[in-house]
């Protein structure tokens, strides 16, 4: 215990001696938490649209203004021919072409049917997909408007009409930030904690100070604890700052209890830091440690369920995410912050993460060798 005291004192001194690193540790997450949720949004806006209007009728005008008025599209060209419009797609100035054929108005009124042509630039898949479906929805609405005007409403509609009303629980106005901020916070804590620990022991190896430690009678688990605790404290502080920022900037207050949140984050951090320490005991240089951490962090984050839903992943990927601690963290963050889940609700996740913490830290202790 006494040895641990000296280790911790030394470790904290070293961390706080490097002012640049301290600044980075605290400012980086803050800046990221401020910038990312505001900029990186799933909602597709500013879809560039080129219109080829062969009809030039009042109906075609109405359709076009309805599309533009939706706010999702920007009119990039009003072209005479499809060829001209396609040139815009080729030069990446347009994402979508809406071609309105000749006699659009006449056919619509007289023959009660008309076809429109939509061409999508599928290079940016998300934008094309969503843009195309927005456009489809707007055209369908336009269609409904016209039918309302032109057709005498029969008492019973000729078509079965089922109107769907969705009620968005836990995030009633589908505020994207409410969804993404807890996830980003989870990732920030993971990155900072993971990288700092991964680079720590390996740095002592590089500098040669580990040799002086290895020749002392210090116990291996005490040494690993001495490396674990400082970063655990640091990561908890960062997490707290993050929660405060989420509240101040985005008005997000956890619906569930802070107690549950901190219990989980405490255990989760042991997992992440244990992983970092394990990497550190395997590597000989900081470069190696950095690359290995990058490799795993990319996988952890992309398969963590923050940016893409785990439910829509293929079966093998779903299984893989079970080994991913970040997945549980993001899950629990959303459960507790948005849904108000209690400690009992997050017990399964807590169990898995605890097991991981024990395995990773135990492995790190075993893999740290004082005698080669």
């Amino acid at each position, binding site marked *: 215990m*006494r*040895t641990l*005291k*000296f*280790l911790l*004192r*030394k470790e904290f*001194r*070293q961390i706080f*001696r*490097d002012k640049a690193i301290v600044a980075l540790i605290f400012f980086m997450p803050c800046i990221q938490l401020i910038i990312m949720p505001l900029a990186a949004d799933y909602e597709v806006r500013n879809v560039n649209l080129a219109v080829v209007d062969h009809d030039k009728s009042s109906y075609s005008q109405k359709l076009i203004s309805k599309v533009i008025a939706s706010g999702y599209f920007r009119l990039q060209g009003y072209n005479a021919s499809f060829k001209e419009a396609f040139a815009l797609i080729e030069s990446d100035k347009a994402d979508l072409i809406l071609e309105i054929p000749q006699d659009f108005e006449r056919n619509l009124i007289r023959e009660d049917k008309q076809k429109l042509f939509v061409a999508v630039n599928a290079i940016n898949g998300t934008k094309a997909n969503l843009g195309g479906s927005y456009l489809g929805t707007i055209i369908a609405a336009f269609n409904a408007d016209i039918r309302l005007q032109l057709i005498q409403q029969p008492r019973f509609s000729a078509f079965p009409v089922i109107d769907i009303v969705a009620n968005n629980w836990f995030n009633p106005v589908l505020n994207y930030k409410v969804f993404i901020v807890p996830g980003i916070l989870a990732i920030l804590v993971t990155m900072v904690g993971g990288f700092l620990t991964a680079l720590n022991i390996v740095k002592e190896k590089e*500098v*040669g*100070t580990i*040799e*002086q*430690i*290895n*020749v*002392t*009678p*210090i116990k291996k688990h005490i040494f690993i604890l001495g490396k674990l605790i400082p970063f655990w404290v640091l990561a908890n502080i960062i997490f707290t700052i993050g929660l405060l920022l989420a509240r101040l900037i985005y008005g997000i207050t956890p619906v569930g209890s802070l107690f549950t949140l901190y219990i989980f984050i405490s255990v989760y951090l042991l997992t992440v830091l244990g992983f970092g320490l394990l990497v550190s005991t395997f590597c000989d240089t900081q470069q190696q440690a950095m690359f290995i951490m990058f490799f795993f962090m990319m996988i952890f984050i992309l398969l963590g369920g923050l940016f893409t839903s785990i439910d829509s992943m293929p079966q093998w990927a779903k299984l893989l995410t079970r080994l991913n601690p970040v997945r549980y963290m993001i899950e629990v963050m959303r459960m507790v912050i948005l849904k108000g889940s209690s400690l009992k609700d997050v017990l399964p996740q807590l169990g898995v993460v605890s097991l991981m913490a024990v395995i990773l830290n135990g492995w790190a202790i075993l893999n740290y060798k*004082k*005698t*080669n």
Partner: protein
Amino acid sequence: MVSEEKVIVCDKLTKRFGDFIATNEITFEVNKGEIFGFLGANGAGKTTAMRMLCGLSSPTSGNATIAGFDVYRQTEDIKRNIGYMSQKFSLYENLTVLENIEFFGGIYGLSDQQLKTKTAELVDRLGLKSEAKKLVGSLPLGWKQKLSFSVAVLHEPKIVFLDEPTGGVDPVTRRQFWDMIYEAAERGITVFVTTHYMDEAEYCNRISIMVDGKMEVLDTPANLKNTFNVGSMDEVFYQLARGAKRAD
């Protein structure tokens, strides 16, 4: 004060790295309080042998006991009883002189009271009073080495292992360094030291010279000069090391 008690007993100690035999069946004993010079050309296997004796590296074969503890099974007991100063400076450069002393003293289990008196003594002895709160990284090499040594013997170990402690250090500081070694030996600490300076070899009670992983000779400096019928340790070393096949 050299006594009859054996603190290092080595019997055919060997370390292989694949096909390469770094240390080949070295056998020797060192008495308590002795200053034992461990000489050899670069790559002769000195550091490997020393790392085995410190419990940092497991031997491939052979036996050795350090302060009565076995190098295979009791490495942590060995570590409690030795001090070690590696070839590469390995105190924390981003901690101050005082912080380094406190840390290593604390790790070796010194009490607060012991730490306090030891630190004061040490700072005084090294003349580092005005530098005590400076980062170790900013000290000149000579001071760093003296500090390293002082930290290595802070917990009054039975044996202290010094791996080229005076490499790159000026002659005056080297002299002071050897004064410190003598003081430690006076207190009964056995000193096991490697060096490339033959004048330093003369300061040792006994010296051994390693060539290509084997211990070729082991005797007092005076006896060695007689045996080889030469006037200086330089010549003894030269005659032996000339035959070495390994180079850097």
